[in-house]
């Protein structure tokens, strides 16, 4: 019974908000926004934390600088007071006689290395000045390099002026402190702005990263969902009956694996369909062959008897008639014999029994075949070589039918080679084991089979041999298919055709059987 199923697949028009692509992008945006928000919040916390610490450090630095500033003021005041005291002391020790003043001033100058110059203007208008001979030619800068004190001498004896040398490094260090304080001020002024700027930069960078991630996610989601959509379209086409449709996805990820699995499933389905169709065709041909054999076989015997009676009843009076009759009878009998042979092959084809599989050793099958049909190589010009497997393999098969299939293959090879007048006909049978199957390979050095005809030769009554009935290979394929196997043709290294029979191994997990037509 032929069952045809047609699924009506509704057109899948998913609204944009329901698409996988939209959902993935929305999830990415949501996650990205959360991440950016959390990142910015943490950055702001970090900046605020370090800003507090920096603020404390700046406050400490400012306090320190202000302390130094006060210390510097005190130092200057003390130094000024000391200079003034030293000048007053000097004034008190000056001799009264004017001519004794200069040696006294010079002695003071020598005794005080930080004194650069001493000058006394007497009441009589006489000026006595002594200078440090080691003083530089460059004039000292008041307030920076030098400090000048001036007092009136006791007893209205005149004025005394002393110039003390200052260490310029003190002022330089103090000015550097001022620079540092300004830097601290700038840092304090810009703290809030810097905090905002760091947050802004981090936010902008995070948003850029988010946009990049969204774009990448969009591309990935689009690519993935497109492939899923493409697979979905292929499924729809298959559902509508277009069994040749295949997914073109070639990626290595899960979607690619799904597509490949789906394609493989379709291939398997197509192969199974082909097997079923083939077996149905073979079944139909078998029915027809059975009927033809029956219809032809029945009148053959009366025809032959009638012809023999004609020959027996010949009175022999006319030699010319007798000769013509004998020739005619011979022709009719030849044709009857031909028809008998054809009927026999039809009957053989029609009577291919149902496979009754049983566990059997492949070596045993090949040994029995070689023992029973080794005569096929008796031909002086022919060689049949059977190489059993090195490690025996158990298969589930009908031993007799499998041997019959091998006989048909070898006969086909030998006859084809003979028709092409080849010398040194060679047929080899060997096996190769796979994980869950075993291949029986039949090689010959015959004319080979064109690639275009390799499928057709298994069709019943399809032959290129003058003497062939076109049923041998059809029987072989039926037997193989009944064993849930496969058969195909390749080029043989011997120069002819190679028939490969792939049969499932015993207890093979993937073994399946297609029986009957």
């Amino acid at each position, binding site marked *: 019974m032929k069952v045809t199923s047609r699924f009506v697949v509704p057109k899948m028009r998913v609204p944009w908000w329901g698409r996988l692509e939209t959902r993935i992008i929305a999830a990415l945006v949501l996650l990205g926004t959360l991440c950016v928000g959390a990142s910015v919040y943490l950055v702001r916390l970090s900046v605020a934390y370090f800003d507090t610490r920096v603020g404390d450090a700046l406050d400490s630095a400012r306090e320190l600088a202000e302390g130094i500033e006060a210390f510097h003021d005190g130092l200057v005041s003390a*130094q000024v007071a000391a200079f003034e005291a030293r000048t007053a002391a000097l004034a008190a020790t000056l001799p009264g006689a004017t001519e004794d003043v200069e040696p006294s001033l010079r002695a003071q100058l020598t005794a005080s290395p930080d004194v650069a110059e001493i000058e006394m203007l007497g009441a009589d208008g006489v000026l006595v000045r002594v200078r440090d001979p080691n003083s530089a030619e460059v004039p000292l800068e008041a*307030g920076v390099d030098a400090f000048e004190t001036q007092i009136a001498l006791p007893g209205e004896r005149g004025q005394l002026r002393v110039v003390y040398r200052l260490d310029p490094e003190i002022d330089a260090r103090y*000015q550097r402190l*001022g620079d540092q*304080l300004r830097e601290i001020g700038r840092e304090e002024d*810009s703290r809030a*702005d810097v905090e905002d*700027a760091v947050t802004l930069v981090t936010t902008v960078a995070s948003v850029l990263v988010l946009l990049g991630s969204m774009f990448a996610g969009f591309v990935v989601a689009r690519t993935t969902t497109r492939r899923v959509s493409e697979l979905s379209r292929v499924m729809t086409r298959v559902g509508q009956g277009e069994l040749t449709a295949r997914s073109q996805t070639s990626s290595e990820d899960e979607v690619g694996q799904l597509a490949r699995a789906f394609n493989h499933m379709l291939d398997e389905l197509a192969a199974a369909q082909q097997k079923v169709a083939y077996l149905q065709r073979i079944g139909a041909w078998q029915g027809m062959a059975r009927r033809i054999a029956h219809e032809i076989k029945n009148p053959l015997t009366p025809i032959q008897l009638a012809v023999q009676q004609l020959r027996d009843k010949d009175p022999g009076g006319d030699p010319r008639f007798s000769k013509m009759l004998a020739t005619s009878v011979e022709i009719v009998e030849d044709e009857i014999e031909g028809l008998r042979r054809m009927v026999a092959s039809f009957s053989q084809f029609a009577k291919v029994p149902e496979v009754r599989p049983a566990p059997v050793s492949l070596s045993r099958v090949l040994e029995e075949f070689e023992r029973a049909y080794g005569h096929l190589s008796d031909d002086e010009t022919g060689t049949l070589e059977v190489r059993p497997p090195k490690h025996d393999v158990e298969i589930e098969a009908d031993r007799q039918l499998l041997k019959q299939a091998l006989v048909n293959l070898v006969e086909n090879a030998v006859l084809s080679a003979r028709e092409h007048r080849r010398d040194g006909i060679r047929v080899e049978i060997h096996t190769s084991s796979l994980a869950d199957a075993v291949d029986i390979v039949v090689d010959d050095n015959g004319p080979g089979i064109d690639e275009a005809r390799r499928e057709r030769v298994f069709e019943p009554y399809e032959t290129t041999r003058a003497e062939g009935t076109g049923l041998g290979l059809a029987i072989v394929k039926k037997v193989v298919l009944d064993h849930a196997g496969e058969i195909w043709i390749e080029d043989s290294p011997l120069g002819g055709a190679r028939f490969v029979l792939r049969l499932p191994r015993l207890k093979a997990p993937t073994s399946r059987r297609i029986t009957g037509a």
Partner: protein
Amino acid sequence: MTRWRRRHFLATLAALPGLGFARGDPVSRRKAKFGEIASSVQMTLSLPRLIRLTDAEALASIDSGFDTTLEFHVTLWEHGSREQVGHRVIVVKIGWNPFLKRYVVKTKGSTGWMQRTFTSRTAAIEAAVTLDRIRIAASDDLTRGTFEDGPYYFATVLAMRNPIKEDDSASARRRRRGDRDLVWFGHLVETLAGERARAEEVVHVRTNYFYLEAR
């Protein structure tokens, strides 16, 4: 929205941050006095905005004894020409000297530092922010002309209070540390924070035109 409009809208949108960060120094006009003394052209210009008498922080800085540095970049231009005729940098320091107990204004000229002292802070500030008869060019460097025909000259003065030396800045310190990413990030943050100011106070002025009378 057409494609053209959309492109311009997007371009404007993209340029907005750049426009926002662009900071130019507004150049205002300020009247100066020019005179020819012997063989030099001299200018007198006062820029009181540089140290405002109401700027408590600036005044406190002066009183603290730390020198407040004023830097004047004087550039002389010929009207209608893009090439400068002359350029001069004048540095002035003002501060309280605890030894002298006076305000000191030091000006760095071509012959070295020149020092003036003041008892009044206001007078010291006024002296510091005034470029008093400074030589801006040699007479021979200018072309003499007439009031009607010119050529005319003018000066631009970029004055800065306590200019930030690049070597002492945070950017320079980061650069010395050698972390390029940190330098880049610092530039970005400072640009956004507006921290890349060149000085505590910047005054940029352009003077009136003058011409050198024919003799």
